[in-house]
């Protein structure tokens, strides 16, 4: 269900795949975060201390200059970016929270956001009494997770293209039974990677807009427009089945937009926080549209979408699970349990190759699904902080 713009969540926010993780260490649950302040001016970059003990460290960066600024924490080579805070407007304060291992670093600011930065100063992380361990393999693990997820997205969209072609052929030929049978199963490929698919601004409304989201006078295209024609039982009085011309126009558009989507996903890459936030985004799709039965207003195949969103979230979680096992095994345990509980609830609604229609669920069943989505959401919330710190 497109709610106009979701791009910020997965793609729009930090397109630079900066390795926020390079200096990461295993989480130290007992260590208190050390708070430092940074003042970035036109000609200075003053950090409140030049050294700090290893562990969670919070830099509170205030831009006292009159240009947009950035703050960098660099490795001992002065080049590798360990942490950064970008796009800090004049007068604003932004926090950068990182886990730091013992070693030599540099701090620097970049007012104006160009050039090599100014005020570069040595910064030392001293041994800490708490037991923090450097995880040297982390970068490689993150890169692997990124590549695997990019492949998964491409594969799902490729299957969406194939499925859409078959669906379009059946619908064009007037074989509505076949089209209805293909509808939900094909859409699952979209729903599995929905947060990525939706990040391409104008494609999402063209492919996945609900009728209620239309502006007056706006053309309705995409899956749900066809859905209404295939399941007209709940349509308003006086609803007329689409003409052959309208069917042709809708399918042509659907196939063309899906092909464009396929082109767009070929060159994607994902940072770790984009992956973890993508999992939350998919869960929120479930919470907002599927568990309420609003997504599939005519076919009531919401549980297919539900399952697919969860599939996608599980893939994102599985990609980072090995990292999480090292950082926070308890959280991994909790997530495993909650994912399994949600899957058990969904499995109980399987019928043949599909699921119970949303309209056939009892209020208690819907409530149980909603509660379990929240139960999974809470530990999933902690995933980004557990991994990115």
């Amino acid at each position, binding site marked *: 269900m497109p709610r106009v713009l979701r791009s910020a969540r997965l793609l729009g926010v930090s397109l630079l795949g900066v390795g926020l993780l390079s200096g990461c260490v295993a989480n130290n649950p007992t260590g208190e975060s050390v708070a430092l302040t940074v003042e970035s001016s036109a000609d200075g970059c003053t950090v409140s201390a030049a050294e700090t003990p290893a562990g969670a460290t919070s830099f509170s960066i205030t831009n006292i200059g009159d240009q947009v600024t950035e703050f960098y924490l660099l490795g001992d080579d002065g080049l590798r970016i360990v942490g950064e805070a970008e796009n800090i407007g004049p*007068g604003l304060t932004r926090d950068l929270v990182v886990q730091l291992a013992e070693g030599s670093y540099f701090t620097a600011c970049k007012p104006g956001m160009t050039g090599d930065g100014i005020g570069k100063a040595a910064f030392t992380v001293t041994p800490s009494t708490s037991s923090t361990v450097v995880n040297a393999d982390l970068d490689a693990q993150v890169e692997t997770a990124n590549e695997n997820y990019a492949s998964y997205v491409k594969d799902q969209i490729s299957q969406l293209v194939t499925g859409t072609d078959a669906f379009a052929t059946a619908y064009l030929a007037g074989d509505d039974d076949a089209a209805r049978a293909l509808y939900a199963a094909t859409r699952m490929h979209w729903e599995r990677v929905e947060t990525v698919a939706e990040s391409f601004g104008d494609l999402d409304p063209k492919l996945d807009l609900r009728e209620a989201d239309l502006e007056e006078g706006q053309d309705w295209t995409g899956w749900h427009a066809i859905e209404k024609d295939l399941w007209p039982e709940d349509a308003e009085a006086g609803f007329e089945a689409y003409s052959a011309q309208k069917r042709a126009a809708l399918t042509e558009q659907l196939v063309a937009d899906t092909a464009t989507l396929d082109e767009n996903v070929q060159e994607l890459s994902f940072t770790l926080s984009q992956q973890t936030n993508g999992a939350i985004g998919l869960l929120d799709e479930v919470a907002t549209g599927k568990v309420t039965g609003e997504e599939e207003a005519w076919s009531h195949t919401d549980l297919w979408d539900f399952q697919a969103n969860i599939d996608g979230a599980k893939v994102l979680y599985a990609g980072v699970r090995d990292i999480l096992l090292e950082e926070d095994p308890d959280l991994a345990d909790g997530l495993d349990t909650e994912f399994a509980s949600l899957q058990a609830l969904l499995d109980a609604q399987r019928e043949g190759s599909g699921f119970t229609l949303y309209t056939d669920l009892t209020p208690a069943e819907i409530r149980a699904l909603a509660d379990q989505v929240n139960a999974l959401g809470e530990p999933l919330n902690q995933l980004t902080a557990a991994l990115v710190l």
Partner: protein
Amino acid sequence: MIRAVTRRTSTESADSVTPGRGLSRRGLLGLAGASVAGIGLGVAGDRVALAAATPGAASASTVYPFYGSHQAGIVTPAQDRLHFAAFDVSAGVTRTELIELLQDWTVAAAAMSAGQDVGEYGATSGPYDAPPEDTGEAQGLATAGLTITFGFGPTLFKTADGEDRFGIIGRRPADLTPLPHFPGDDLDTGRSDGDLCIQACSNDPQVAVHAIRNLSRIAFGRAALRWSQLGFGRTSSTSTTQATPRNLFGFKDGTANIKAEEPDVVADQVWVSAADGPAWLAGGSYLVARRIRMTIETWDRTSLREQEAVFGRTKGAGAPLSGGTEFSEPDFALAGREDQPLIGAAAHVRLAHPTQNQGAKLLRRGYNFVDGNDDLGRLEAGLFFISFQRSPAQFTTVQLNLAKHDALNEYIRHVGSALFAVPAGIADGSYVGATLFA
């Protein structure tokens, strides 16, 4: 705007009656329809004298004048609590009976605004074998800045079936037509529209509820509650003397609102002028109410980065992401990484800004609400949006822009909607909407 509490006697009320159409508690007895026969709607018990007046600060003892050139509750510094109610006029009610209702409401609203009980005998006096005239839960409470504001919906002039029940179809403002469907609207008709509305605001929730309760009671048989909404925290400042409050997303809201201290802007953007027409609405305004449900559970799973990007402001100080402090003007052109503007194209602050809406501004006066929880165990939370504007087109322009592009749409849903024409202020001795029926 603020005056100390003064005792108004029933004698004064009777003295202020204008000839012919005058209102007094005695007159009301005679005017009242059969269904309210026997209920004397005068002015009695004075419970506010106990509250000490502290002019200059909105406090428990604050009393805003009910009568004036504009209705109270619009540019009045937004109080902390709201009870808003929409009514439908009952079947078979005549023009005369509608006028009588408005007269009765006027007298009762004036009394309550002044801190007095409803009725001749109030809450604890009168015939021992009769129910008290005032419901009584405001006994011992100060008005806490109570204002009561009335409005007329499109259906008062012309029903959905095209019926002109009260002979006023020719006086319907051309702009008073139902709002268009906006993208994403998911409206519940049971929480939308209405023939009449009353906005009661006070810093004491029980005082606001007392007002709506007593006005509903007075209306029984003539108009029935269609829907009502409680608001527990204001989300806008309408005066520069007020701090900017926060909505349930945790962000300051209404920083750039129209303020009472900007008379030129108020005149230009809030009050209907005589030239705008119709003449009877001059000095009035249009009220838009939107019940906006927030999916706060989803919002709370969102990173601080995205939350600030969605609003285009910092969550702490409320400064625009382009820099400065809360009241700094946003710089929509200022770019950061990769030449992308610091305030994104879909940021709420950008899309709601007058420069993006042909200069349209709204006087916002909304409230946070939490009405228990829904069937899915989520808080039934949101923003009850209220705005006053010179023309509904100002709201439509802004809302169309927001409904199409606002990043916030992922976390909100408009589930109720209503539009009302708010007549000008009431002269002492007259009644609300007198110019409409003149």
